């Protein structure tokens, strides 16, 4: 199971960095829920995911082509088709840490024989928004 969760996160992060929307969308359930420290946002369909993806791409570019690093801390199954994983996510650019490691929780569901992200619990948005505003990219 650890390997499978790694695969999901690897696809998710690398697709976000490279601009591969289809690769990103394949790993998301719809609706996809983002429970943030500031609000809860629901992405109901493919088009909404694309808007999210493009917004993230702009932010990643504004953060000097940031790359993601992650480390899985825990995986907890909830029945056979749901699991939650706690991971530390960081952002790097030009070999420097630009987003401090943050703990995220991701909820994955088994769909069509692969794990997909159903929701993320993200405590970072207030900091990201502040950073983007400081960079003039908010």
């Amino acid at each position, binding site marked *: 199971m650890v390997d499978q969760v790694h695969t999901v996160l690897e696809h998710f992060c690398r697709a976000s960095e490279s601009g591969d929307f289809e690769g990103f969308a394949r790993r998301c359930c719809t609706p996809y829920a983002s429970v943030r420290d500031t609000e809860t946002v629901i992405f109901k369909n493919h088009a909404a995911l694309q808007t999210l993806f493009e917004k993230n791409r702009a932010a990643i570019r504004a953060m000097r082509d940031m790359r993601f690093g992650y480390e899985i801390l825990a995986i907890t199954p*909830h*029945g*056979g*088709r749901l699991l939650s994983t706690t991971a530390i996510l960081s952002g790097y650019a030009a070999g420097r840490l630009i987003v401090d490691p943050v*703990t*995220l929780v991701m*909820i994955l*569901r*088994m769909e069509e024989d692969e794990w997909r992200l159903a929701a993320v*619990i993200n405590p970072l948005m207030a900091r990201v928004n502040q950073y983007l505003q400081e960079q003039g990219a908010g």
Partner: protein
Amino acid sequence: MWRVQHVVDRAVKALVESDFALYRQGKDTPYVLIHDTHTEVLDTETKLRSYFDKKSKLLAQNRDQKLQRIVQQEQAIGASLIQATVLTHVEQNGVLVVDPFKSMITYRLVGDNWRAMMVVSPVSSRWSAYAEAHSLEGEMQW
């Protein structure tokens, strides 16, 4: 004492007493329910009320059953989010009606209050199965 136990207690009290205003104090919309087959989003007051009414009615049909929800674990996710593991017991005359089951609930700090935002609860939760087997109206999705 866990930080969200009182929020859980209040929600149980609200359901038992059919007090939607009390229930609403501990919930926010959109309220997200992650099931093992799909995700349900309660993004309006009407949907949240309908969800509450179903659960409250199910409890009202079984007045002699005692519902207990106990926070087993809290994980802080940043300063304003908590993920709690909640164990549910349903007893009747001192005997468990179904085996205890766990749900995972995410809370956000809104002002001075923790509010539930999302629950992860497999459809196969035992009380749902019990309700179905006994032809009780409504689904017991926590």
